[in-house]
């Protein structure tokens, strides 16, 4: 067993075991804690695969962003000291069935993939990227392909410019998120200002 596969096993096990612990534990904040371990180990798997940008994004968005908001929400809204979620036996059975079905889908797709290696032209196309990755140069290809310049040779002719890149869809999504953010801030504000206006009138 090489060092790489040993580390892969360690992090894959910790991902899966803490994912199971998320399901088993009853307290919401404990679930969040196990979710940190699970998502952190997933990002470690990304780092092992030399995809350090995706791994860092995983840490920043899911662990540092979403989970902090989750715990923050629990702290602000909980009525008792430790919020618990008790699952009824029926729910457990239904959720177990859904999980089992999903496992079968995943297993089917894993079986369908040919893991022995890609075809020859694909390998030669990817060799360039692999050499860049092994020298630690992982970010520039992502940035250039955002601009529409594919350095992994995905274009058929001379590796020149093709399509508009990923920048346009990325911008559309981010503007959409901004609209959602402003909209929710507006909705949250409108109620409060009306109440305070009413209060002022009654005082006067």
């Amino acid at each position, binding site marked *: 067993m090489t*060092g790489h596969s040993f580390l892969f096993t360690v992090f894959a096990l910790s991902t899966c075991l803490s994912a199971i612990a998320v399901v088993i534990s009853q*307290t919401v*904040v*404990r679930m969040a*804690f196990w979710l*940190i371990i699970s998502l*952190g180990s997933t990002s470690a798997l990304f780092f092992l695969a030399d995809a*350090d*940008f995706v*791994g*860092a*994004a995983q*840490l*920043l968005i899911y*662990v*540092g*962003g979403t*989970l*902090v*908001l989750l*715990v*923050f929400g*629990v*702290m*602000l809204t909980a009525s008792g*000291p*430790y919020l618990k979620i008790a699952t009824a036996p029926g729910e457990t059975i239904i959720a177990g069935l859904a999980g089992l079905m999903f496992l079968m889908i995943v297993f089917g797709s894993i079986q369908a993939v040919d893991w022995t290696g890609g075809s020859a032209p694909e390998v030669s196309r990817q060799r*360039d990227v692999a*050499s*860049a990755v092994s*020298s*630690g*140069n*992982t*970010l*520039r290809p992502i940035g*250039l392909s955002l*601009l529409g*310049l594919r*350095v992994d040779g995905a274009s058929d002719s001379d590796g*020149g*410019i093709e399509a508009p890149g990923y920048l346009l869809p990325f911008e559309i999504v981010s503007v959409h998120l901004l609209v959602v953010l402003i909209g929710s801030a507006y909705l949250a504000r409108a109620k409060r200002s009306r109440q305070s206006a009413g209060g002022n009138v009654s005082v006067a």
Partner: protein
Amino acid sequence: MFAANSIAEYLDQNVAWLNGCGYWVAALIHALLLIHVFALSPFAFIWLERKVSGRIQDRLGPTRVGGLFGWLQSLADGIKLIQKEDLCPPAADSMLFRSAPYIVCVASFAVFMVLPFSHGWVAVAADCGLFILLAILSLEVFGIILAGYSSGSKWSLFGGMREAAQMVSYEIPLAICALIPVIAAGSLNLGEIGEMQRGGFWNWFVFHDPFTFFAFFVYFVVATASCKRAPFDLAEAESELVGGFHTEYSGMRWSFFFMGEYASMFAVCGVASVLFLGGWNTGLPFLDDALSSARLNGATGAGPWAAGYLANVLGAFVFVTKASFGVFVQVWLRWTLPRLRIDQVITTCLKYLVPISCFLFLGATVWPLVLLQVSQTTTLTAPLGDRFGGALGEARLRGSVPAASVSRAQAASVSVSSVGEVAR
């Protein structure tokens, strides 16, 4: 013999009995070195904090413990803390209560993985080092929120809530301010960013353009707040919240929070020094040129390797001095300014620091275009393209970047500029 680019490479090539396990030994060496940085920086800075606060408030600070200036005070504190009983209140969620200090410690320790201490002295030379660093820094909050929540105490809960609100809002200007020098550099690789500021303090990114100049000060304020230092230490306000999130902690678990805090102070000041203050470069052109040529000769075998190694040691010394000066300023601020209220902390961030940093970010993106129109260059002092080309060429000489990728990067930059021409 010392031409290898990393410890792992050297061990694999020269030490036969390791049998290809050089990777593990190198990882162990890196981890041991970083643990010492992580443990010794709080040791030094806690002593510094006591002495500086003593001077500012007209006291002596520690004098009795240890020899000169009471330098063993931190060790005495450590021995005291180890001896204390490890308490867990009955109302607490014991598993979360016990694990929260470790999350803080691990997060602030992991930051040092991607932080370069000198030219090439970095445990993980990732291409998106700054991005990984910001991601790991954002994890430290989680331990503090968990500590506040799981203590089963009102004071801790309020401290944890304040901390969550403060950190979530201060992360935004922190990331934006860290991006401004990245725009000037065109790279997220901290090693590359540091190397670009070689040759004179006017090449430091703080003097790159007016926007990076102001961004440095905004970054420093935001970094102080993100380490929950005074005047932004509402999460642990002693006078109103007893101790905030760490009210219920004692002994080593309590001290883990503070080790994490001091280590992350050092880390954010180190990032400031790499991004804005030239990192391991001295800022004096004759010294910088001599050091970099010594490094280059040592690496290629043209000169003595010891000279190159000593140049790196000097670089690490310069880096640590700059970062420690940042920590000193943070300590100075803490004992000078009164604590803000929590609403003032949030107002400062959301109404002032976020708009200011967004404006600086926009300005930094527009600045090269304006300069291009006015004076046909993209930077005031030196053409960035030449410097970047020089750095890449040097890296190619050292053999860390294969020739193919250099030519590809050049081809890419050429085609990107042609896109710009078409657009114009």
